[in-house]
């Protein structure tokens, strides 16, 4: 075991391999507040990567309804029960990670879902906690539910990679995506067991494991992953996240995660340093949210509820382009995004211009309807 630094835990931790951060780290930010659970992301992924025989149970992207939903079934509750309680002292996690609690004979604490667990990807869809017999209002709704968008977290310290006994899983230095070498995998499924998010999946007709590849062929072109660009609710923003000591406020992902601290990692206490970041839903019970997203929940909701000008502008850049915005700027009127080559790829005004047209179109001598 090596000792590595996990900034999400605010401390060093045990990991089977030395700290080795990629040149760029894949990341997606999700604004949970805006998700309508339409599953367009899910189908975009399915139709791109997992439509073949042997992949019937695979949903590299899924959207589940919290608090009860989960794909595979109860993936997180099972692991939380195995881990036991762990508390935070400020931003420092005082509990033990899945690596630090590995049982005898294992490198990682994990569990193995059954075929049935994989077979109901949207169980408890739209099922709220409690029942509606009265009106409800912020800050916490009663009853409540929200959609949780999930893909592979392309973790900095992946549980799947740690648990593979033959190093068939690797993290690409150029973009930080975590991939299964399809030539080297022998189908032991230790990655399925070791991934706390259960995003490594067994393909029975090939006897090997497959997983979300982050749409790396698209990343190589500077284009976002399918699930990101297909989002009709424009709740997703893709980018590259830096560790806090190298963060750049002009990088949209760094601004969300490190400056505004409005987007939080999912289950940071697992210890893998996951790289999907969520703006928590304003209406859900804070204790539940803290279990999912760690101690930064209150500040994140406050920042989202009353955003500063830069964050206000940045939130408008979600979902406006298929390309990956690597630099952004916000002025009094608009938010502007550039790609890696320095080309402007998005310009979003805060106020949309209003055009007032005459009631009669003199060219055709007709009355205009309220349409463009």
């Amino acid at each position: 075991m090596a000792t590595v630094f996990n900034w999400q835990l605010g401390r060093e931790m045990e990991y089977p391999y030395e700290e080795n951060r990629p040149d760029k780290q894949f990341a997606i930010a999700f604004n949970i507040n805006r998700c309508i659970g339409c599953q367009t992301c899910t189908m975009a992924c399915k139709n791109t990567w997992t439509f073949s025989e042997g992949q019937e149970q695979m949903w590299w992207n899924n959207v589940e309804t919290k608090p009860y939903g989960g794909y595979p079934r109860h993936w997180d509750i099972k692991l939380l029960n195995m881990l036991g309680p762990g508390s935070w002292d400020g931003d420092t996690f005082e509990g033990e990670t899945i690596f630090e609690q590995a049982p005898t004979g294992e490198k990682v604490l994990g569990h193995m879902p059954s075929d049935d667990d994989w077979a109901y990807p949207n169980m408890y869809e739209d099922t709220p906690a409690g029942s509606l017999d009265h009106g409800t209002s912020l800050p916490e709704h009663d009853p409540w539910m929200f959609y949780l968008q999930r893909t592979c977290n392309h973790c900095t310290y992946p549980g799947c990679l740690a648990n593979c006994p033959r190093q068939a899983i690797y993290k690409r230095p150029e973009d930080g995506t975590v991939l299964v070498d399809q030539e080297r995998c022998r189908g032991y499924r230790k990655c399925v067991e070791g991934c706390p998010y259960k995003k490594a999946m067994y393909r029975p007709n090939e006897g090997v494991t497959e997983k979300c590849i982050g749409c790396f062929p698209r990343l190589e072109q500077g284009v976002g992953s399918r699930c990101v660009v297909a989002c009709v609710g424009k709740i997703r923003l893709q980018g590259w996240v830096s560790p806090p000591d190298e963060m750049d406020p002009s990088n949209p992902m760094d601004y969300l995660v490190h400056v505004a601290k409005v987007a939080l990692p999912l289950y940071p206490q697992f210890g893998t340093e996951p790289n999907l970041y969520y703006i928590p839903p304003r209406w859900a019970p804070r204790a539940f949210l803290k279990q999912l997203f760690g101690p930064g929940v209150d500040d994140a909701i406050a920042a989202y509820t009353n955003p500063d000008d830069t964050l206000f502008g940045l939130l408008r850049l979600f979902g406006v382009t298929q390309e990956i915005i690597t630099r952004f700027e916000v002025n009094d009127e608009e938010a502007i995004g550039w790609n890696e080559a320095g080309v402007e790829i998005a310009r979003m005004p805060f106020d949309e211009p209003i055009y007032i047209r005459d009631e009669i179109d003199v060219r055709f001598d007709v009355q205009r309807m309220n349409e463009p």
Partner: protein
Amino acid sequence: MTTPLNRSNIWRTAIYASVALLFVVALLVTLDRGSMVSAAQTDLTSVYVNQDLPINDASSALWDQASESEVPLSGQNITPPFNVDATIDTIRIRSIHNGSWVAFRMEWDDATMNEGGGSDDYRDSVALQFPINGGEPFVCMGFVDAEVNILHWRADFQRVIEDGPLSINDIFANAKVNIYNQADDLAFTPAKAVGNPIATDDKPSAVEDLIATGFGTLEAQDVVHTTGWGDWDGDKWSVVIARPLITHDVQDTQFELGSETPVALAVWNGEEKDVNGKKSVSAWVNVAVEDIPSAASGGPTITDGTTVVLGSPSQTEVVETSNEALWALIGALAMVVGLLIFVPAVVFMTNRQKRNKTAENG
């Protein structure tokens, strides 16, 4: 009252003492062999049979010609993942050869048959491990510059050979899928596309021919020189693993007639979720490949069609192994002769000294 030692008494005592000493040594060696597996002596003999080998038939009467060795197993517990305790405690092994092929039959008690399948189903399997370049490498998967050749029979491979690759209906009998788009495009079965032998539908054998140089280094060889078949009778597995004695493949162990080589066994119990390092393993066991009796040498099996395809022991190699056996016999005879001269000589000298003493005292 003591009987004075005269000359004949001393001789008789010396002979009795020698016999008793030999008896005690033989007893200790026997007890030692019974209590622990050691590569210091022959634990298993691959018996010569002058017939085609039952490479797919674990119940053939030919197996009765070889004596059975029972090998104790323990949990692999050096590197994760592992089971602290063995899930299979013991395995029984026999071996026969016909001068061109060698076959091993393993039997172990297993009340459940597991062929793999769904995402949480694991297969039963058994493996034989041999050093490639002699000696006794690290028993757990070998070591750098001390490669091991592993022959791994798998119930899931055998299932694919028998029934074809798994489909969704093998896992969920009532599942219905309307269409698989671009089903013939290999790009969408990437493990098959890159030729991963775990994934390919056309299995050359139910037995993998593997090479390893330590934990996590296991590689499938390009050419598979082994075959075999397993039968499960409701209580136990009986599995045959066979291959040519000589394959002329540098990644394979070569078995020369009259020679000995260590073998280590491993068994996986799918019911207990055994996979990878979660296995029950033995220490090194010595297997002797019996030389062909002189009356049978040059018999039909040496020159049968099978050996032409996959290689047969060359005449030189057979002669070499015969020489080794001859030298071993000469050495053993020399030891016996030496003992026969040395013991009486010591006794004679002792007797003479005593007589001299008596003469001085007198």
